[in-house]
């Protein structure tokens, strides 16, 4: 009976074979890489990350993987639990324009591009999404909530309910969510998440997070050693790559960078902080414009970027309960996603970054139809105005058609900062 009720309105999934989508992704990626190469100095082993982001090799590798692959969205999903079940997590938030068009064939246009693009990937049966056995989705905003419902026609979807704030009662509810997610993962993968497995994977991810921080510190000491886009490239490849290989390569990268000398005179370039809606490969349009115009993106607070490094899970003792508690706190408290009712954490973080990186101006990326970021921009704008830090807001989406207009705005903004 329960089964029947549950299946009552399940629809036959809509699928669309689309030729050329993979080529289009490759073209979009290469366009970014071309523009990134123009910067001049880049670390030697950056080509490794370039290959990962193109995705072709990694896709084949994952296709041959015999265990479970679990997709997830946002920064709230504890990858520790997935790795502990010997499964592989893949982040599915997408920045690809062509799959937006695919999605718009069945859903309305007036939905945030990130969700349209990700869902478009699912229905066009291409990329990592196709390899996922299940998906974990949090509930930060309306498009993500309804994505849960729609995706449920296609594959098992597990929901992680995001609390509205970070108070202690919210933290309790959140911990329960994490615990039930753990059970679901155990059932699904038929793998017990033992204390020992958890401890190991917490350490593994801790190592990765430490590397994020190391890179961040290197850039803080000398922001010109590595371009902002290259930094994001390194972070975003960790969403897809084999974690141990990524750690090896990134240790190498850090070592290499700490030996490098400055490649630009200090303060030669205008230092920009990028904040706002997620910027995910291959949607590097705004970043390309900024850096092609000669400015340097020295830091960001994007959930697809620097936000990743604030989450350090450090349990006081290796018992399952304490570890789960540390995981829950780590993922909730470090987030500055605008889904929370009050988000002073984000303002604090932006102000801190401005100071630490001696930022000249802030560029706010507002994805069309992403209401949360749009609304939050108002407060930040006023606060920065008070502090006399110039901010430029760019409203855009994943298409290329407004490139020239954005260029004019950014260029004028840089001219203004140069004075």
């Amino acid at each position, binding site marked *: 009976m329960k089964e029947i009720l549950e299946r009552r309105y399940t629809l036959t999934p809509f699928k669309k074979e689309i030729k050329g989508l993979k080529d289009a992704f490759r073209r979009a990626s290469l366009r970014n890489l071309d523009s990134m190469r123009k910067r001049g100095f880049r670390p030697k082993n950056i080509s490794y990350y370039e290959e990962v982001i193109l995705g072709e090799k990694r896709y084949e590798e994952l296709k041959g993987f015999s265990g479970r692959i679990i997709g997830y969205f946002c920064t709230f999903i504890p990858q520790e639990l997935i790795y502990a079940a010997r499964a592989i997590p893949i982040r599915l938030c997408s920045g690809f324009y062509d799959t937006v068009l695919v999605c718009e064939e069945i859903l309305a246009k007036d939905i945030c591009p990130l969700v349209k693009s990700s869902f478009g990937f699912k229905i066009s049966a291409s990329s990592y999404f196709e390899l996922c056995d299940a998906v974990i989705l949090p509930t930060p905003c309306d498009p993500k909530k309804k994505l849960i419902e729609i995706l449920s026609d296609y594959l098992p979807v597990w929901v992680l309910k995001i609390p509205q704030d970070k108070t202690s009662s919210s933290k309790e509810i959140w911990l329960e969510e994490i615990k039930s997610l753990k059970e679901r993962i155990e059932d699904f993968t038929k793998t017990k998440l033992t204390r020992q497995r958890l401890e190991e994977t917490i350490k593994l991810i801790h190592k990765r997070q430490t590397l994020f921080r190391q890179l961040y510190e290197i850039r803080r000491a000398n922001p010109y050693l590595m371009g902002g886009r290259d930094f994001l490239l390194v972070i975003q490849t960790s969403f897809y790559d084999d974690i141990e290989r990524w750690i090896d390569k990134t240790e190498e990268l850090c070592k290499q960078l700490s030996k490098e000398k400055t490649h630009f005179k200090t303060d030669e370039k205008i230092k920009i902080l990028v904040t706002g809606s997620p910027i995910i490969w291959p949607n590097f349009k705004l970043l390309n414009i900024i850096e092609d115009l000669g400015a340097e993106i020295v830091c960001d607070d994007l959930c697809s970027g620097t936000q990743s490094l604030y989450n350090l899970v450090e349990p006081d003792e290796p018992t399952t309960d304490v570890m789960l508690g540390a995981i829950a706190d780590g993922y909730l408290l470090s987030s500055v996603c605008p889904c929370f009712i009050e988000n002073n954490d984000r303002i604090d973080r932006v102000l801190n970054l401005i100071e630490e990186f001696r930022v000249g101006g802030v560029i706010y990326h507002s994805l069309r139809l992403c209401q949360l970021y749009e609304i939050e921009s108002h407060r930040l704008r006023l606060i920065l*105005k008070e502090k006399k830090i110039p901010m430029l807001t760019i409203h855009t989406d994943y298409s290329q*058609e407004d490139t020239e*207009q954005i260029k*004019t705005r950014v260029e*004028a903004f840089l*001219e*203004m900062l140069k004075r």
Partner: protein
Amino acid sequence: MIVCGIDIGSVATKTVILKDRDIISKSLALTKASPKLAAEEALSKALRQINLSEKDISYIVSTGYGRRIIEFGDRTVTEITCCGRGATQIGSPLGKIQTIIDLGGQDSKVISLDEEGGILDFVMNDKCSAGTGRFLEVMASVLEERIGDLGEIALRSNNPVRINSTCTVFSESEVISLIAQGRNKEDIISGICASIAERIAGMITQVGKKESIFFCGGGARNRGIHRFLEDKLGVELYVPQEPEFVIALGASLIAIESLKKI
């Protein structure tokens, strides 16, 4: 020292030639399909008027959306910076300029200036063309009026209609249905001007409202929009004598400054 500023806008391309700091020639050409040809045409027209040739010019700054298209320029600067520079040079009888409204063909912008005339902040209209000269052009053709007459016609109305749509295409069909309903043409035109004024007023709120406002760009010639803006903002606006040349003038001034730096 002879320098030149070229503003390649979406509708018109404007050129200003300076000798030392005085304007010795200026010209305007319609941009039409080729910004490149328009720039060449505008420049040679301006040169012909003073019997000079291109080699007499020591420095050219190009600006506007087509700024990168021409090959004979020495430097490109955005229209926002040029607009600020041009406006401060012209000045205003209302006192030190604090805010500039530029109503151009494809975009409109509001610029806020600091004490020294430097740019403090700016906003531009989004992708869509509502609230720009292009919008007026579309409406003028639907209403079978000349774009230059719209302002005067608007002032004759006592009862402007309300245009609800915020996008050019939708507004166009809205206007068509207003015509079909038999609404008075003056009232419709007046409503169109009011809707543009409303958009611009919204942009002014974004950068922070100031007292001394300078209004330029081709759209500043529209007295209807001018009046609605003054009503909405509750302050007088200053429109310079040739509002479409402000940006080109700014570019030519930047040309002088660039030359000095060399």
